[in-house]
Structures are given as C-alpha cells and as structure tokens.
C-alpha cells in the first residue's frame, strides 16, 4: 500500500501553525465532550497516525449536508478537517470532471483498500433497478455497494442516508432507501438531521480520524455525544413550557416574549439532537429561536407524521430525565442499527461543551 502522510503533515503543508493546531485540538476535545487531558492525546494521534482517506458520494439528496459541512464553526476546524480528509473523492467539490473523476474514484478505492471511510450523502432509490439516480452511467446503488465493499466504516450523513428523509415520503415514488438497508456488513454511523449541524459533522469525523474507531452510538446508531438528549431538555424556552406559557399563534404576544412553541407543533419534546446546545450557523440560533417549532428532522420518519404543525400528543409517556436509549427501549417499532449499545454521554459533558463552545466571538467580529 502506498505511504500515507500523517494529519499533521497535511496541516503543515496547508500552512497551519503549531499554535493553531493546538488550539484546534483543544476545540475538538471540548466539542466532543472530552476533558483537557484529551488534548495531548488528540495532538499525538494527529502527529503520528496516517491520515484516513475519505470518499464522499452523493445519492438522492439535495447537497444540504455538504453545504452544512463546509460552514463549520471554527474556520481552522473546517480547514483542518477538509485538509485532513482531503475528500479524496467528492463529486461536488473536486477539481476533476467526467471520466477523470471516475478514474479518481477507482484510484482512491484501489490505493486505500480496506482503509478509507465512505461518507454517504443521500440514499439509493431501488425502484426500477435504481434508474432514478444514475451516476457515471450506473445506478447509484451499484456505486454505493462498490465503494462500501472495501471501506473501513461508513458515515451516513443526514436524514437521507440515515432514514430516507423527504424523498422517502409516502408514496416514496423512487423507493428511496437508507444506506443501512443496502449495506449490512460494515459498521455504519448515522449522523441524522436535515442537514446535520456542521459542528456535529466535523466532530464525528474528527473523532473517527483521531481515535480510529466509531464514537459511542445510541440504539439507533447515532453518536451519543450529540444525539443523547432531547432538544426539549436543553431548550431555552423550556421554563415557559413548565410554566404553561405557550405561543398560540404566530407573532402573538407570547411569540414576542419567547414562550414555548409546543402548541405550534414543536417536535422538540421527541427529538434527539444538539440544536438547542450547539445551535446553527456558528452557534447563532436554531429553529426554535426563530419562533418556529422543531420539525424533528433528526428522527426517523419525521416526514410522514401528519402535518408539521400538529401538536405532539405522545409526550406524557416519558420523562425529562430519560435518554434516547431508554425511550428507544420503551417505544415500539424502533429498530436498532445492529451496533453495540453504550451509555449516553452525561448531561454534564454536553453542558460543558456548550460553555466552552459558545463564545460570542462571531458576533463582534462580523
């Protein structure tokens, strides 16, 4: 196999200073909910381990995951991750085109056989032999299987790859099918959301590159560190829920006062994601903060649960203190991803990462 440089080599080549590098390691540790003791470990891993190649493919999707990814919070984080994984093959961003692009795809698989991570954005449609999504003259499902065969692990980016997302909405015209139903013999980590939060994406990928293993997953195969808690549990409007103060219609007095959006159909009480802690667009906000309820886009089947403005009615069956795993055990019809179940990261860790990650830097700098 060809010799591969370390992450640090790649970073040096990109002109990233030692100081920035250490800062990045510290940020990563906090984003992952790890203590300061992990900073030198991350740094050491990056200096000594060969960089893990990534192949990024697109099926039925809207590219919102890529869009989210290239907008990660810390510019350095984005730079580092981009240069680390080098996106050896990414058909939206790469330079090559046409046959050259296909050749690069083959070459990457050949060169890093058994060693690369396959990142999948979107999913394969299986109806009509996969003819609804053709890439390089072949159905995407074939390309996916081909690329998966020699991959070390697979990341299912977003609700599309994880669950099917809106293109799987009834009647699912193309039979859009999540990745884990097509690829069954590889470790798969699901990073759902439509799209996933940028920091969650870079956090997951950095963890895998640094420690060379999957992070702890919940029952559904999602990284527990980011999907361990309900949006409702960390929502800044939660006190209003507890006090029975609700928005009754758009822009009423309650809306102006930031009351709870439960009656407007907010799915925060049943949705596991980091929106209310990490937030969006570099920590600026998240849907509930914009006065619109959560639609539950990181949950399986969110697209076919009646209208998005229907009130959640099965709320009373579980308490605030429960985590996704316990709910998953209780709720019928939740299918495990076949991956070992670990305890969810404690609330303390998430709170800690929030405190370390929420400087208002973006505010004044802008």
């Amino acid at each position, binding site marked *: 196999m060809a010799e591969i440089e370390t992450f640090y080599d790649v970073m040096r080549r990109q002109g990233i200073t030692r100081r920035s590098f250490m800062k990045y390691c510290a940020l990563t540790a906090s984003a992952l909910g790890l203590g300061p003791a992990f900073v030198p470990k991350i740094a050491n891993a990056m200096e000594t381990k060969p960089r893990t190649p990534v192949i990024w493919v697109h099926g039925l999707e809207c590219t919102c995951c890529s869009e989210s990814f290239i907008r990660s919070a810390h510019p350095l984080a984005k730079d580092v991750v981009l240069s680390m994984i080098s996106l050896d093959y990414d058909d939206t961003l790469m330079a090559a085109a046409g046959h*050259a692009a296909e050749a690069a795809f083959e070459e990457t698989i050949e060169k890093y056989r058994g060693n690369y991570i396959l990142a999948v954005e979107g999913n394969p449609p299986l109806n009509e032999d996969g003819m*609804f999504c053709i890439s390089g003259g072949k159905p995407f499902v074939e390309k996916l299987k081909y690329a998966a065969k020699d991959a070390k692990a697979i990341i299912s980016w977003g609700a599309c790859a994880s669950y099917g997302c809106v293109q799987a909405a009834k009647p699912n015209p193309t039979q859009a099918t999540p990745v884990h139903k097509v690829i069954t013999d590889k470790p798969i980590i699901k990073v759902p959301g439509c799209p996933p939060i940028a920091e969650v994406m870079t956090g997951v990928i950095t963890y895998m590159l640094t420690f060379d293993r999957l992070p702890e997953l919940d029952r559904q195969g999602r990284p527990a560190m980011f999907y361990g808690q309900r949006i409702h549990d960390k929502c800044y409007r939660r006190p209003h829920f507890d006090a029975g103060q609700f928005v009754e219609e758009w822009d009423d007095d309650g809306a102006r006062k930031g009351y709870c959006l439960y009656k407007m159909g907010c799915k925060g009480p049943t949705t596991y994601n980091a929106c209310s802690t990490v937030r969006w667009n570099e920590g600026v906000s998240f849907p509930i903060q914009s006065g619109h309820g959560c639609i539950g886009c990181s949950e399986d089947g969110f697209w076919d649960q009646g209208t998005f403005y229907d009130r959640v009615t099965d709320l009373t069956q579980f308490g605030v203190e429960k985590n996704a795993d316990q709910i998953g055990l209780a709720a019928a019809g939740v299918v495990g991803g076949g991956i070992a179940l670990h305890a969810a990261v404690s609330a303390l860790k998430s709170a800690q990462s929030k405190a370390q990650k929420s400087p208002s830097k973006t505010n004044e700098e802008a």
Partner: protein
Amino acid sequence: MTERSLLVGPFNRVEGDLEIRLEIKDGRVAQAYANSPMFRGFEIMMLGKSPMDALTITPRICGICSISQSSAASAALGSMAGLPPAPQGALAAAIMHGVENLCDHLTHFNLFFCADFARAAYAGRPWHDRAVTRFTAMEGSAVRACVEARAQILHIVGLLGGKWPHTLAIQPGGVTRAPTPRDRIRMTSTLAAFRRYLEGTLFGAPIEDFAGLTRAADLTGWTLGDAGLFMEIAEDLGLADMGHGSGRFLSFGAYPQPEGRAFAAGTWDNGTLGTVDTAEIREDLSHAWMLGEARHPTEGRTDPDEDMQAPAYSWCKAPRLAGRTVETGALARQVIDGHPAARDLAAGGANVRARVAGRLLEIARTQILLEGWVSALQTDAPFITDVALPDAGSGEGLVEAARGALGHWIKVEKGRIAGYQIVAPTTWNFSPRDAAGTPGPVEAALEGAPVGPGEETPLSVQHIVRSFDPCMVCTVH
C-alpha cells in the same frame, strides 16, 4: 474530420447530477443532449398532504436554494389565500432570500466556475499562475476566503430564520420571528464585514463603482480584484464567443415588497421588453421520461415513464413560454431590470462571459439592497399576519432563485393538496427538446462549441455548462 459522439459526465462542481451527450462533427459540437439523471418525485409526494407541509417539504428539494423554494411555496399558499404577507415580514423574507442568492453567486464564481481556469491544460497562459493560486478546487486562496465569508453572512439567515439550509421561518403571512433591535445591529455589522470582503477581494474597489458601471466595455475591462482576473481570462479565452444564447430572457421579478419587486419582472426578446404572462407556460413532455401531454403547471402531472422510452432522454420536463425557450438567471434579471451595462453586454444574446459578469453585477447590487433593507427594519411592527388557507383553491408562487425564475403551482381540494407542480430555473435552462425538436437553452448554447481532437471532457463544454450555474437537484425534483 471524423464524427464522433461523446458522453460528458457525471459533471461535478455543479449542484446535483448531470450528464451531457454530444454529437461532434468537424471539431465542433453539432448537437447536445442534456440529461438530468436524478428523480425523486416531490410533486407526487405532495399529493394528499396538508398544504402547509409544502413549506417544510419543498425546500428540501435543494440544500443550496432552500429559501427560494420556501419563498415560492409560501407565495403559492399566500396567493391561494389571497392575502399579502405583513410588509415587514416580506422585508425580513427578502433579506434572507437576498443573502442566500448572494451566497449562491459567490459559491458559483469561486468554487464551481473559476476552478476550471486552474486546469493544467491552461498552463502557460499569462494568468494561469494567478488562477491556480486563487481558484484551485478546494485549496485556492479565493476558495477559502469565499467559504469563510459565506459562513459569516449566513449568520443573518441564522438570526432571522433559525437555521440554514432548510429554514422554516418563512410563512405565507410573513416570518415567524420578529427581529429585535439587537439583531438589527448585528446584521448591520455582518453586512459591513461582508462589504469589506467584497471590496477587498472580489471587486478590489467600492461596490458602488462596480454596480454603477453603465457600459459593457467598462465591465469587461474591469481590472481589479478577482472580478478583474476573471475578465482578463475571459478576454484571453474568448469566453464572449462561447455558449451563445437566444437573446430571450425571463424573470419573475425578485424580492416582492408592498411597493413592488426589487428587481423587476418581465421578458426580454432581443431588445424588446415584455410582461410575463404565466398562462403561456407549458411543460412539454415529448423528450422527458414522463407520461402525458404538454400542460400548464396548474393542470400538470408527474407520471414517470418507468420504461424510459425513446426519444426521451431526461427526467427533466421542457417548459416553454408561448412555445419558445427562454433563458433565466442573474443576467436575465439584470437585463430585464434595466441595468445599462447588463443590457449592453447581452445585446447580442447571452454568452459565457456575459452570464458570469451578470452574476457579478448582481452580487454588487444585492449587497446594496441588503444594507438598505436591514436599515428599513422596524422591529416593533408586525412581522406576520394571520393567513387562513381555504379548503379549496389554487395558487401560484413566483420568485427568483439565484439561478432564475422559480414557480410553484398548488391546487387544494378538501383541505389537501390535489396538485403541486414546480418549474425551477434550471428546468428552463436545461430542458430537453420539445415536440418540435427545439433544443433547450443549454443544448442550443453548446452547439458550435470547439472540441479538440482527443478531448474527452472538452473545456469549452465545461465553461458553457457551468456558465448557467445549473442546479440539477432543483431541475428534476
């Protein structure tokens, strides 16, 4: 010279999947066939759903034009209800939409289009070293600066809309969040920073200087910033002689406000300005893998032909306005809105250079609009009105996405969606042939493009196709 046929694709650095078949004769493209190979069936999924669900589902057609889709869906619902949004809500929606369009233009210029100039095939050209430094895919200095500047300005959408992509805040009655005075200050400072980026990097001069150019020669002779580098390259490579358009443009008009649209709606036919009559739209299915007759979108159906029978070669329907093809996009918008330099530039019809220059002009003008809009926000005014949707009715939502005219047509019966049709900008630009055999705009623009012997992915074809900034995920949905 021999004749041969060439399959170019998958195209990367375009949004979504695209494949183009070229028939080559005497070293030039004789015929081109654009195939959009991805179909998801959004119009089918909408049937039977609550009309309000259009606001959540249709934006997910596209992760880079999601606010355009959301605005069109909300406009269609609003038109069905017969009520305009709260004026300040329309203003807030325009700000979000303007930011998204601005970002799309920047992404196109820096990430998708100019990367081709860094190709080894251009080594030795006087500008090549600079192009490599600035525009190399994923690594160029302009690419990095652009990605960072975009992330910053998208804070505005974050503030007003909670999250981007797939913002939920835009509703038929306005927006769900009334910005606070603090938000306004923050948006003002974000825009000021973005202006510094544009003036320092893209234009190399005050934005007003670029936006205020009145002659095509001043625009194409611009020497400052990355815009200047592009103009130099365009001149050297003869991009003005590539990818000729029909000279017919369409714009639905961008950013509806109570006093009108900030960029005017209209049609343009080689020097003649006209009004848009959407009743004249038909989607032709003769060369699409779709069953049925050519229909107006209100009567339109989406019934994929699973046998994929010839002569069809794309999932894309072929929209025609009064039976003819039209080109849509930033250049069309600027020409129809009456920008003198854009009209001068497009005097002989569109071409590769004119399309990119039109986009640059629009970047400058949109920044100025955004600054005005943010200062016009009245944070104590209502930002949303109560819009009750009727149980039955139909609506038409017309907006301008970055890539051009976007329309949603909705029909509701018994409180459920009975018909939903979407005609996206790239559906117009990348449409296949119609029943009369007339090629779509990009197919026509490719005819005559030079193809060197042995060239498998002809550079001219790359430039022409990308000059339209295709968004293939919107095209077929």
